[in-house]
């Protein structure tokens, strides 16, 4: 995971950047609630200049799926 994505997630989820790994997900992160998931969507759209599709809006539940969604928008190194 890039520093850019790590910093972005840390700010949004109010976590220490060092605590974020490829395994971080809504399951193991209490602050990763549905509102923050939407903020994450808006932030990713702004940061990477993409527009998510509606079914992707609800897939931002883990670092792994975020990377997958970004890749599908051509963001290879987020």
């Amino acid at each position: 995971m890039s520093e850019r994505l790590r910093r972005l997630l840390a700010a949004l989820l109010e976590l220490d950047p060092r605590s974020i790994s490829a395994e971080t997900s809504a399951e193991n992160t209490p602050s990763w609630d549905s509102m923050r998931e939407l903020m994450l969507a808006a932030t990713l759209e702004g940061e990477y200049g993409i527009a998510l599709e509606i079914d992707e809006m609800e897939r931002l539940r883990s670092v792994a799926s975020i990377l997958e969604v970004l890749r599908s928008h051509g963001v290879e190194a987020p």
Partner: protein
Amino acid sequence: MSLEADRARLRDPDLSSADLFAIGSRHLHAHDDATVRFAIVGNLTIDALARAVACSLVRDGERPCMYLGAHGAYVQELSDDASALYAFEPDAVLLALDWRPFAERDDAVTFVARLWERLEARGIAIYQHLPEDPPERLRGIAECYDAASPRHRVATARERLLALGAGRVRFIDTAWLAARIGSAAWAPPRYRHTAQLPFDPKHLPAYMRLFAAARRDARGTAKRVLALDLDNTLWGGAIGDDGVEGIELGAGTPRGEAFADWQRYVLALRARGVLLAVCSKNDPALAVEGFAHRQSLLKREDFAAFVCTWNDKAAALRAIAAELGLALETIVFADDDPVECGLVCRLLPEVEVVELGRDPSRFPERLEMGFWFDTQRATDADALRARSYTARAALERAAASGDLAAYLAELDMVGRVFAPSDPDFARLAQLESKTNQFNLTQRRYSERDLRALRERAVMAACALRDRHTDHGVVSSLVAFVEGDALRIDSWVMSCRVFSRTLEAFMMNAVIDAARARGVRRIVGEYRAAARNGVVADLFTRLGFERSADDPTRFERALDAPTPPLPTFVRSAP
């Protein structure tokens, strides 16, 4: 994290929506020692925008305690005396309604106004979103004529809300913000379908600033002074180094135009009661010269305070506040230089700072997106300051009523026709190359051509100013003496000054010049092109006869003395 640290982060112009959301989350219910109890209700999800409201209050020094109404239940919450909202005992309520309730029914405004009455009866201050236009076009223009269409209903509702709410309700100008951002980007449907969000959370920082403006109006903490740097802020270049002739300002270059347009914007603020101040590191005597520039719309006397020193700008701003007898908190400081902005930010947190950047065409936008001078109702004092604005409005009414002659007379136009010299050729060549409408022959002379022709040709340039602005050089004419005739080879005029009788003013000068050279007639040509139909009859309007054997040729004899062509432009003294 401390309140002060949060305040500082919320003042950052680059605040991200993610940071705003995180800070706002901490302040939703945080304060036992709250200074204001603020309730928010809406027809869609308010969770995100409530955080922006909390941030706005924290940013401007308040300690809020927030109440978030149940999703979509605003009618019940406001109608039921036993509701949780009334149990919260709010000082203020925000009705965060988008356009939808107003599109659904004709009487939505009446209905909302009844809710206001309930709040007023309890002494609760009211804030409300001004509904934005519906993004759906449906069948287009026909919707505008259909009184029951969403587009028509929402437009009508806005007017009625403003009329009924005047002095009672503080409106959040979401209608403008949505239009400014663009309705598609303001509220992409995916955010509503996913979580019923009324707008894309990307725009939370802008929304926070917009809300803050309405809140300042309520608290009487609206900004009153715009303190401006000079060099590269009100004109391009440095007056001390470049001199008054060297600064970039006004017609002639795109940057110069942009600075002039920014000056126009600043003057419009002044006309609405905003006090202007100069805060510059300059020699005061030199600084004043900038306002003597012939295209400077701003004049020295437009500034209520004028502080030019070599001290730091924090000290200068203190001097301005003292001179005006106002608190530092009333000042917005705008400067192109990030270093100066950073210094003032750090030393004077009371002053709001707008970093204008390097592109003067963006200055108005940079300032406007802070909503610093927003007010809900203009006061009497504003009206007194607004005399020039009132005069201009009268003029526009005259134009609208069809009385063009009166309109032109009131424009108070002053023209100057002159033989161009070296510094003028760049501007004239620009007119030759860019002008497509008032362009009689499509012969486009370059700067080099013009220089080369200066001995052989008869050239005329024309500058125009009126009561509103100095347009600078707006027309170029190149003619040749051929036998007993003066033949106009090229004539172009900027489209900004069409239909003002400037062409007649200029032709009078050309006729005088032709007579002085002893020629007996003037010959004109019109060659039709894609976009120059507007001047197809120019020469006949100016008293020329079309040639019988060549329809592109026009001629005006100078044998008999003729009265000058009528014009509303008078000669510069």
